[in-house]
């Protein structure tokens, strides 16, 4: 298990180095940074000075190595707009975003799991058809539209939930739903199809032949085996949860790092954007690692001894 963890961690570090390469490339792809930072009529000499100060005149590999060296210490330089370290902007808000992402994930699993199970156990009935229709609708609805509709109906018309900001759990419900939107239908469909597959397995028939009752067979042999593909899917979905969080944060004025990134993009505050992208990658890579561990706990066949 320890060797598995060490290998998995080295792998994650490699992925992060790749991400940093792209993040650094972002800076060059957006054109001359000095054009954004200095007035259009600034002297060439001033521009040169600024480039030298930020190391922008070094050859690319040197820049990359220096950049990585600073990035691993959480140093992405100062925000171009405000004289504060860029990483600080992002990291102080990361907790809020992680909380929102976790709520979204919890909603997807708590609603999608039972819906998928019901759909599989009542295959071909109106329950199944309804659940699948809800799933298809969820996949078709754009998240920003759902956000606006939620504000309109639950927030403004019914006045049940606060429409912006953060505070208690009620502030998390609507943005959480928006974050859950792309993942929930995936959970429903994957769990349904994997349950239908598992229900047909010989070991399920053998458990029934042992006289176990329906719920016992389901709880002991079906639910867990069928959950394995969900873990795989969640690994893919972490990225879409993070991007969903950005949308939700902007719509609901939720003070997370996605909103910070959104402002930074509008202001062309590249350093903050870089710090954000790095932070998101860090979250995705870490959750993927945790999911791999969860996977090996669910399925002993992939466990490395």
């Amino acid at each position, binding site marked *: 298990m320890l060797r598995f963890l060490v290998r998995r961690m080295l792998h994650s570090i490699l992925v992060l180095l790749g991400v940093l390469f792209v993040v650094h490339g972002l800076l060059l792809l957006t054109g001359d940074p000095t054009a954004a930072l200095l007035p259009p009529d600034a002297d060439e000499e001033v521009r040169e000075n600024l480039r030298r100060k930020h190391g922008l005149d070094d050859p690319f590999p040197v820049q990359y190595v220096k950049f990585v060296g600073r990035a691993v210490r959480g140093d992405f330089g100062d925000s171009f707009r405000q004289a504060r370290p860029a990483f600080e902007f992002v990291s102080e808000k990361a907790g809020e975003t992680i909380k929102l992402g976790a709520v979204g994930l919890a909603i997807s699993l708590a609603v999608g799991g039972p819906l998928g199970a019901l759909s599989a156990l009542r295959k071909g009935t109106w329950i199944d058809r309804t659940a699948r229709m809800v799933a298809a609708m969820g996949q078709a609805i754009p998240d920003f539209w759902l956000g606006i509709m939620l504000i309109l109906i639950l927030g403004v018309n019914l006045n049940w939930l606060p429409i912006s900001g953060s505070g208690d759990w009620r502030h998390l419900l609507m943005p959480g739903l928006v974050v859950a939107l792309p993942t929930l239908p995936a959970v429903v469909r994957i769990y349904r199809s994997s349950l239908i597959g598992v229900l047909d397995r*010989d070991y399920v028939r053998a458990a029934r032949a042992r*006289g176990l009752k329906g719920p016992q067979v389901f709880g002991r*042999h079906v639910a867990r*085996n069928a959950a394995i593909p969900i873990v795989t899917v969640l690994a893919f979905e972490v990225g879409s949860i993070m991007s969903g969080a950005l949308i939700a944060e902007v719509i609901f004025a939720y003070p997370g790092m996605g909103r910070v990134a959104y402002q930074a993009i509008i202001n062309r505050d590249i350093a903050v954007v870089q710090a954000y992208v790095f932070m998101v990658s860090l979250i995705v890579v870490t959750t993927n690692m945790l999911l791999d561990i969860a996977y090996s706990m669910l399925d002993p*066949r992939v466990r490395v001894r």
Partner: protein
Amino acid sequence: MAPDTATGSSQVLAVEGLTVSFRAVAGVVPAVRGVDVTVGAGETVALVGESGSGKSASVLGMLGLFHPDSAAVEAERFKFEDMELSAGRREDLQDLLGTRIGIIFQDPQSSLDPTMKVGKQIAEVPRLRLGLDRETVRRKVLDSLAEVGIRDPEWCASAYPHELSGGMRQRAMIATVMIAGPSLLIADEPTTALDVTLQAQVIDLLATLQEERGTGILFITHDLSLVSEFADRVMVMYAGTVVESGDTEAVVNHPSHPYTRALLESVPRLDGGQVRPIRGRPPDPRDLPSGCPFRTRCDHAHERCEQVEPPTFRLPSGQTIRCWLGEQDGEPC
């Protein structure tokens, strides 16, 4: 256990006029069309037939292991031990399955849950069905693993199925089924997925367990040669009916139904006898030929076979056959 089962004379299972029909999109498929089965305590009865002959459908059907929406099961009589039950009724059988009736399936690899430790699976019946306490269950699990010939029961109980060899898996499977000491053991092709050496070992093991406990065994197989050394009685199934039935010796040495003969000739033998495959293929149960269902592949078929499905005749050699050939020497029964 009832006192009379030890004598080996009482009947564990008695089924008469069993029918199983599957509900398919295209209509109702009659898979089993009137089958009588009896298994005595300590007796081994082999149900032999090609795939699709209805042998598994009979057994799984009468034990209520098909979903009631997908199969209709009926029998004139269904008696297990001293209980008159209705065949295929899940509610009737729920309490018996796993405790009084054990079922071993073909593929031990896929019959064990890959994500649960072997010991925990074996413990399910004593734990959940018999409600024994943790310590007793633990001891029983280790005992039963030792009994099926596992050398290191502690290790085996804490292993996952994929860590065991094929033979050990089937032994573990047998342990799950035998742990509660069932009086009837259904073995559905238990050795088909194993190689020949393991086949012999598993059959020896079943025979030993049977001798110790007086279990009645209903052994489903497509391999008539396997049966000859092991079963007391043989029932040959074709297209949903029993075409020949009797003591193993009578059926194997004096096969009387053309299908049984053809089946025996289609098996390769050590003495180098000619292997003759049976021509044609089993009929589609949705579209059985008129009269005798075997007539399209039978060398003895004549006009009458086409018109009337033959009744069952009892032959002087002891067995019964469902063929007009039995009319000469046999008595209709």
